[in-house]
C-alpha cells in the first residue's frame, strides 16, 4: 500500500498547491514580524538597562506610529495574498468537470458519481477515484450531523451540512493515493472517519469507473453462494446493498465493490481477509460506537461470507 499522504505541505493538486504557496507567504511575513518585534523588545531591555533614555514622548509617538504603520502594511500584503488565492481557488469551476456527490454519515462517506443518465450513476463508499488533471466538483451533503470533508493534499476543507448542499472544487495533478479525514467533530467515532482518494491517470480512471458501473459478479463456488445467502437472508441486507443481489439497504456503505477498496470501517483498518473477519465478528471492538451491531454469525457462515466478499472486486 502506498504511504498515506495527508499533509498540507505536500500538495498533489492545483488548489492545495495554491494554498501551500499562501502558507509560505504567510509563514515568512509572520516570521519576519516575529523576529523584528522580539528584537525591538530585546533592544528596549538592553537600552533600558544601560541608562535612562531621554527620548521625548513625541519621538516615541513617532516610533510607535511607524511600527503600527508597518504592521498595517504587512497586514495589507497578507490580505492581498489571501484575496488573490481566494480568487484563484474559485477559478477551477468548469462545465465538463467530473461530479461526485459525497454525503457524510456517522461515521462513513457515501459516494455517488453523478451522471445525467441515472443508470450510469456509480455508488460506492469511503474511497473515491479521481482522474489526474481534470477538475472535480464535489457536491457535499450530510445525512445526520455536520461533518467536514478534508483532503489536505488536494484542497482545504468543506463542511457537510444537513439540510444544505455545498460544492468544493479540486483537481489532482499527480497520480497517487491520498488520505482525507473528517475534520468537524461528529460524535463518538469522529477519529475513524477517513476517506481514501486514489488519483488515477485518465485512462485508468475511465476503466475503473466503467467497472464500477457493473453489478457484483455472481458467486462462482458453493461457499461464495452460501456467503451471498448469508447477506441476502441475514441482517446484512437491512443496511448494506450489493448491486445485482437482493441486498438493498441504504443506511450503511455500499458493498458492491468492497474488495476493490483498500480499507474497511472508513479507513479504520486495511482491507484484508483477517481484518474483515474481525470487523464482521465484532465491529464494536475496532470502532466502538459505530452503527454496525455484532452479527453473531457461526464460524462457517462467516468463512462463506468472507469467500463471497472477496469476490466483490
Amino acid at each position, binding site marked *: 500500500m502506498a504511504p498515506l499522504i*495527508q*499533509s*498540507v*505541505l505536500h500538495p498533489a493538486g492545483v488548489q*492545495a498547491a*495554491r*494554498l501551500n504557496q*499562501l*502558507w509560505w507567504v*504567510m509563514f515568512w511575513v*509572520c516570521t519576519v*514580524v516575529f523576529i523584528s*518585534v522580539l528584537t525591538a523588545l530585546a533592544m*528596549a*531591555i538592553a*537600552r*533600558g538597562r544601560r541608562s*535612562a*533614555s531621554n*527620548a521625548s*514622548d513625541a519621538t*516615541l509617538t513617532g*516610533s*510607535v506610529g511607524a*511600527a*503600527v504603520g508597518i*504592521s498595517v502594511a504587512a*497586514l495589507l500584503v497578507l*490580505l492581498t*495574498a*489571501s*484575496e488573490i*488565492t*481566494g*480568487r484563484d481557488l474559485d477559478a477551477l469551476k468548469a462545465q465538463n468537470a467530473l461530479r461526485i456527490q459525497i454525503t457524510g454519515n456517522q461515521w462513513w462517506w457515501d459516494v455517488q458519481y453523478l451522471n445525467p443518465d441515472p443508470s450510469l450513476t456509480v455508488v460506492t463508499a469511503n474511497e473515491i477515484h479521481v482522474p489526474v488533471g481534470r477538475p472535480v466538483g464535489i457536491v457535499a451533503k450530510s445525512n*445526520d*450531523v*455536520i461533518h467536514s470533508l*478534508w483532503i*489536505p493534499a488536494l484542497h*482545504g*476543507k*468543506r*463542511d457537510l*451540512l*444537513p*439540510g*444544505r448542499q455545498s460544492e468544493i472544487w479540486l483537481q489532482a495533478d499527480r497520480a497517487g493515493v491520498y*488520505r482525507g*479525514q*473528517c*475534520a*468537524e*467533530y*461528529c*460524535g*463518538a467515532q*469522529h*477519529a475513524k472517519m477517513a476517506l481514501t482518494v486514489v488519483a488515477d491517470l485518465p485512462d485508468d480512471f475511465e476503466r475503473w469507473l466503467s467497472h464500477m458501473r457493473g453489478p457484483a459478479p455472481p458467486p462462482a463456488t458453493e461457499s461464495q453462494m452460501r456467503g451471498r445467502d448469508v447477506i441476502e437472508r441475514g441482517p446484512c441486507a437491512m443496511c448494506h446493498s450489493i448491486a445485482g443481489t437482493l441486498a438493498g439497504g441504504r443506511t450503511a456503505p455500499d458493498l458492491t465493490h468492497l474488495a476493490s477498496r483498500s480499507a474497511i470501517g472508513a479507513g479504520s483498518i486495511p482491507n484484508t481477509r483477517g481484518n474483515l473477519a474481525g470487523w464482521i465478528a465484532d465491529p464494536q471492538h475496532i470502532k466502538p*460506537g459505530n452503527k454496525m451491531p455484532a452479527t453473531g454469525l457461526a464460524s462457517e457462515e462467516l468463512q462463506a461470507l468472507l469467500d463471497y466478499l472477496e469476490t466483490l472486486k
Partner: protein
Amino acid sequence: MNAHPLEQQKADPRLVYDDPRLEPAALERERRHHEASWPDPRGFLGWLRSTDHKSIGLRTIVTAFVWFAMAGVLAALMRLQLSRPENTILGPDLYNQIFTTHGTAMMFLFAVPVMLGMGVYLVPLQVGARAIAVPRLVAYGYWMLLFGGIFLFAMFFANVGPDVGWFSYVPLSGPEYGIGKRPDVWAQLITFSEVSALVTAISLIVTIFKLRTPGMALNRMPLFVWAMLVVSFMVIFAMPAVMLSSTCLILDRLVGTHFYNYAEGGDVLLWQHLFWFFGHPEVYIIFLPALGMISPIVSTFSRRPVFGYLALVLSNIATAFIGFGVWVHHMFATGLPQFGQSFFTAASMMIVVPTATQIFCWIATIWTGRGVRFTTPMLYVLAWFFVFLIGGLTGVMVASVPLDLQLHDTFFIVAHLHYVLIGGSVFPLLAGIHFWFPKITGRMLNERLGKVAFWLFFTGFNLTFFPMHILGLQGMPRRVYTYPAAMGWGSLNLLASIGAGIIAVALTVYLINVIVSLRVGAAATDNPWDAADLEWSTSSPPPVYNFSPQPTVGSRDPLWHTELTPPFVIGLNPEKCEVLVTHLLDAEPDHRYPTPGPSIWPLLAAIATTILFIWSIFSPWGVVWGSIPLFITLVGWFWPHRGVPPREMERELARLEPREATS
C-alpha cells in the same frame, strides 16, 4: 444595610486643605470608627454571608483555579491518550467527554471567572472605593459559579459529562443525536456561567462609573480598570447571544421546538452564528483583562509611567468593537460568498492593529524606562511577548479564508488557541498573581521558586503546544481520540505529552510556592514593588473598608506623584458604611450611599436558582415549581430594610449636615 432614597445626600465638592479633620489624630479616630463599624463577619456563617468584594474576589479566583486544576488533569489525560498512536488508555466515549469538559470548564469556569474575580478584587481598590457596587449581586454571582462548577464536574464523574465539544454544534447536540442528558448538562452550565458573569459585569460597570474616588477622572483611570470596564460591556453584549442559543437548544431538546431542526424549517448554521457571536468576543473577554494586568507590571518594573495611555485605552475599546465583527471566521469552512469572505478576513486582520499598538507602547515603555527589574511577574510578561506573538501571528494566518480551509479544526488551531489563551492570558494572569499576591495576602511569594516555576512553565508550554502547529499542517484533525501509526504523528505527539508533564510540574511548583509563602513568606509592605496605583496605598492585606482615610488622586500615577494629590475624602458616615458616589466623567463627588451589608440571601437565592436550573434539565415543570423558592429568596433579599425609622433618619441627616465638606 439596604439603600434608601432618603439616605442619599448631596455632598459638597469643595477641596479643603486645612480642615482640622485632616489632623493625624482625627484621621486615626476616623480609622477606628471604620474598624468598629464596617462589618467583618467571622466564622463559617460569616463567610457565607460576606459581601466584601475582597473576600468574594479572592474566593472567585481560588475557585476558578480549582476548576483550572481539574480541567488541567483532564488535559493531562488527553495527552496521555495521544502520546502514542492507537493508544487504548481512553475509549472514544470517555475521551470525548474529557475534551468537552476540559474546554467547557477552562472557558466558562476558569478563564472568564478568574478575570472577573481579579476585577472584583482589584477594581474597587484601584479606583479608591471603599466597597464594590451592588455587593450582594456579586456574592450571588460567585455562588452561581461555584454551583455551576460543582454541577459540571459531578455530572462528569457520573458519566453524564457533556461530549459534544465546547461549542456543541447542532445537530450533534440536538435531540436526535445528543445522547441522554449530556448536552443538557453543557447547555445548563452555560446558563450558570452567564448569570454569574452578567451580574459581575454589571457590578463592575457601576463601580467604575460611579464609585471612583474624587479626582479620578476617566482619563486618570488605571488601565486595568479600563480593561475591566470594556470587558464588562463586552460581557453584557456577548452573553445574551449564547444565552439565546443555549436556551433554544434546551427548548429543542426538552419541549420539542425546532429552532435548529432543518427538517422542520430550523437551521443548523443559526447555532453557529449565535454561538460565535458570543464565542469570539469571549476570547477578548479573557484576553483584555490580561492586557490590563500587563500595563501596571511593565510600568512598575520599567520604573516609568506606561507610554501611550490614550492609545492603550483606545486600543482596548477598538478591540472590543472589532471583536464583535469577526465571529464568522470560525465558520469559513461552511462556505461563504466571496464578499463575505473578504469582509470577515479583513475584520479579523484589522483586530491585529490595536493589539500591535499595545505591544509597541509597552516596548516603548521598556525602552525609555529606568532599567528593567527582572522579577517573576516581569519574566511572565516578557515571555508573554514571545508566546502571544506566536499566537497572534498564527491568528493572522487563520484569518485568511483560503488558508483557514486547510488549518481549521486541525491541531494547528489547537496550538493557536492555546498560544492565545494560555500564552495571551494565563501568562499575564500568573504574573498578576505574583504581582498582587503581597497585596492580597500580606506576604511575598518566593522569587526563587517563582522563577523555577516560570522557566518550567515556559519550557513545558512551548514543548506541548509548538509541535501541534506542525501536527496540524501534517493533517492531524483536532478532537480525535486516536490516530493510526501510519500517519507518522507519533513522535511529535509524544513530545507534546512530555511538555504537558512539564507544565504539570511547573504548576505544582507554583502552587507549592503559594502555599509555602502563605505560611512563611516575607511580610509585604504596603507597596513592595514601588507601584503607582491606589491599591498600593493601603495596607497589605487591605482592611475590610479598603482605605482610611479614602484617598483622592491628582494624576494617573497617584503614588508616584504624591505632590499632586489633594487631601483625603472625609465626611462619610462610618457607622452607616457609606461610600462616596461620584460623577461619571470627572469623578466629582455626587452623593453618599450606604453600602449593603452582609447577607445570607444571595446564597439562598443561588441555591434556589441552582435547583431551578438543574430541575429544568429533566422537566419543563422545573421552571414552574423551581421559581417558587427562587421567588421567596428574592423577596427575602429585597425586603425593605426597617432598621432606622424615617423620623430618626431625618434627625440624623440634620446632624450630619455640618460634616459635609469632602474631597
